Structures are given as structure tokens and as C-alpha cells.
């Protein structure tokens, strides 16, 4: 049956570079990024739209890439964790997570970084409550979140919302 189903052409700009692939319609955006483009920084955690490890920005807005079909990104622009650092310099949000040790095992971190980039874009000086709302779709099973909060405050103080790298 699979041979009978026409593939769907997906043209998408990822981290500033244009890609075109013909894929199975059922391919999810996260699989497109990881398997077609070898951008494995975006992780699959729960695979049920709960944990947020797969968060990327699609047309400037955070989405759970395990719950978006690749074809939904056609003609659009995606920013993944690989697109944050510029010229060997960590993005201010990455630097803050590193400085504050806002992670332990690191598995959820790419998703937290992308949600934080999105939060600071909309709200450059977030309150504690803004941060809670901003990262409500991301789960960390290691840290207890305290250092993640510290990292987000530090990233805001460092102007992390001012430069998204694009």
C-alpha cells in the first residue's frame, strides 16, 4: 500500500538554509528534521505532545514538532536548537543555561532553550509567573526547575530576547 501513496513535497527553510524533500505524508516534522536533515538536536521525548523535548520554532512560533506533520511546515521557516549559536558563539539563552547549570541529563534542554527563546521574544522581561506560563509545555525530570528559572532570568538580564539570531 505504501508504494501506492504519492509522496508529498516539503520545501522548508531550516536555520536559514533551504531544503526540499519528497516524504511520506505521515512523516512528522521531528522525523523530517532528524532523519531527512540529520538535525538530531531536536529530541523525541514522550512522543505524545506532553513533554516539549521536540519544541522548535515554526514561522517564529514554538510548536511540538512531534505533533506537526512535515507537510504543515511546507513553505515555512523552522528554527531548531542547531540554529541558535552564531559564529561559534552560544546564543544568550544557551549561555545562561550553561552558566546557571539549567539542566542535568540534558535531554529536555533543546526544547527548553527553544521555549525560552520564544518566551523572551514575546516578553523580554518576564516575571516568575510569565516564566511558568512560558515553559508550561516543557517537562524536565532531573532539575526540579530551579536552575532553569535562574537561567531564564539570567538570559533575560543578558538581553536574550533582543537577538534571536535571525
Amino acid at each position, binding site marked *: 500500500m505504501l508504494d501506492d501513496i504519492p509522496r508529498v513535497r516539503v520545501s522548508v527553510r531550516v536555520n536559514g538554509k533551504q531544503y526540499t524533500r519528497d516524504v511520506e505524508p*505521515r512523516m512528522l516534522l521531528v522525523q523530517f528534521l532528524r532523519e531527512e536533515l540529520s538535525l538530531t538536536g531536536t529530541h523525541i521525548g514522550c512522543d505524545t*505532545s506532553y513533554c*516539549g523535548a521536540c519544541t522548535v520554532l515554526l514561522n517564529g512560533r*514554538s510548536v511540538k514538532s*512531534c*505533533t506537526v*506533520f512535515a*507537510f504543515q511546515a*511546507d513553505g515555512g521557516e523552522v528554527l531548531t536548537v542547531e540554529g541558535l549559536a552564531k559564529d561559534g558563539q552560544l546564543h544568550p539563552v544557551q549561555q545562561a543555561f550553561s552558566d546557571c547549570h539549567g539542566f542535568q541529563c540534558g535531554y529536555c534542554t533543546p526544547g527548553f532553550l527553544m521555549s525560552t527563546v520564544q518566551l523572551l521574544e514575546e516578553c523580554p522581561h518576564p516575571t516568575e509567573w510569565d516564566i511558568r506560563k512560558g515553559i508550561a*509545555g516543557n517537562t524536565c525530570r532531573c532539575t526540579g526547575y530551579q536552575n532553569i528559572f535562574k537561567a531564564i532570568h539570567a538570559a533575560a538580564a543578558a538581553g536574550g530576547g533582543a537577538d534571536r539570531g535571525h
Partner: protein
Amino acid sequence: MYPRAFAYHRAKSYPEAISLLSELGEDAKFLAGGQSLIPLMKLRLSAPRHLVDLNFIPETSYVRSNGAARFGAMTRHADIAASAEAARIPILRDCAAGIADPQVRHMGTIGGSIAEADPTGDWAPVLLALSATVKTLGLAGERSLDIAEFILDAYTTALQPAELVTEIAIPLPAERSGGAYIALKRCAPVYASASVAVQLTLHDNHTCQDARVYLGVLGLTATRVTAAEELLRVTPITADSMEKVREAVMDMAEPTSDMRGSAEYKRHAAGALAKLAVETAVKRARGEHVEVTHLYA
């Protein structure tokens, strides 16, 4: 997890989407934001052989105000939350800004949500409290349905095969109106344990001329609590009457015990949420700016 293989059809207009779905038959489904359908497909609880994609149809995502607040069916929750209409009708913002988490609100649509008619969905109690109208388009042309006629049962709407939602229209509330929607959740991405929507219009500062009270999540569809509405219409708003509203809601609620909590816990939660929602709605109707958000416990 991969969904079962399906064929992809990108519609360029609603009429094209409708004729595609009608040709493809029962094994075809419309795809809106996908925030319910994609997880269901990945779990193989839903396994359509064809998807007709509505995401690339122009002019389907909009917020307008002409005689009513109008939302295109493909308007994302995040866009509703940020709209001037939601600022003017605060219960809309409570709902739109409280659905799941930012990532889901960026993709999920109001039309998709009500067409899904999930009993744990957030929009139904809110749109019922606001007496919203649902515009649809199908093979037989356009229809305009009261939201109460649209949602028939759990996961069941009045939509005919190949018919889709095009717009949700909300009559502009009268002067001195206010509302609130509050859900109790264990955390953002999960379904709520209980929710309450209240929309009321004051006569003077201490009496209501009209009130709507709906419970979400606790039944197969949102449940109207007419006893609480009656109380609000006939008794002055006092601490004592608020307590009676709480009791009326607890009497009416028929929750079942599940992983989200015992029936007794949810019944108490519904009562407490109703009291908080009425108090908030009254303050807003008096012109106060009050922020409420979903409660997480």
C-alpha cells in the same frame, strides 16, 4: 510513533476541501491544527486513509468585529488570546490563553477544537455561556447553528459528512456584562480535572439580570447549571448567595472517579471554581480589571 499511512490532499478553498472529502468517503478526515487528531493518529485510535489539509486555505484565520466577535475556524488559540476581542470579552482570553501550553496554542484552532467535541475541551462551556453561533459549510451549502445545537454528545456534533466549521460568532455582550472561565489542571499539557464558565450581566452593582453557568469536563458535554443561574438572577450578590451558587454547582455535577481525581474531589473542585468564576465575572461586570488563570494542583 508513526500514524498509519495515509494519502495527502491539500485543499486551496473550503469548497474544494468539501468536494475532496465527499469524494474520498468515510476514510477521509479534515486536518485543522492537528493538536488532537495527530496524537490520536499516532496512537492509532484514529487511522484515516486520507487527510484533507485545511491549513493552506487563505482567509480562514481571522478575528473580526462586525455586529459580533467573529473568529475564522482556522484561527489559532494564541491569536484569539492576543486579540482585541478577547481583551473586550475577558472569558475568551481566559479560555484561549489557558488551553494546554504555548506550543499547542500556536497550532490548535478554535474550529478544530469544537468540531472534535472532546468532553474535556475548553471551548464548549465558554461558547455555550456566550451563546455563540457556529457557521458551517457543506454539500448542502451554508448553515448557522446555535452552539447548543451544534455539540450533540461526546465527540459528536451536528456536522454532516464532508461539512466543516467556517466561523464562530459571539454576540457582543450587553453593557455591564462580565464573565470568567477557570479550569483546574494537574499541569498545563494535560486535560483539566474540572472547569467552569460563567457569563453574566448586572442590573445594578448587586443584582444580575442574566447569568449563564456551565461546567466543563465533568460530563459527556458541558453541563448547564440552571439552578445556579436562577439563584444569580433572583438573589442579591452576597457572600451567602455565592455559597449557594457553590452548593448548586456541587449538586448538579456528576463527575466520575478517574486518574484525574475522585468524584468527590472533582465535585468540590467544581463548586470552588464556580464561586471563583462568579466572583470574577461580577468584578469584571462592575468594570474592574481582574486577571484569572487556570489553577494547577
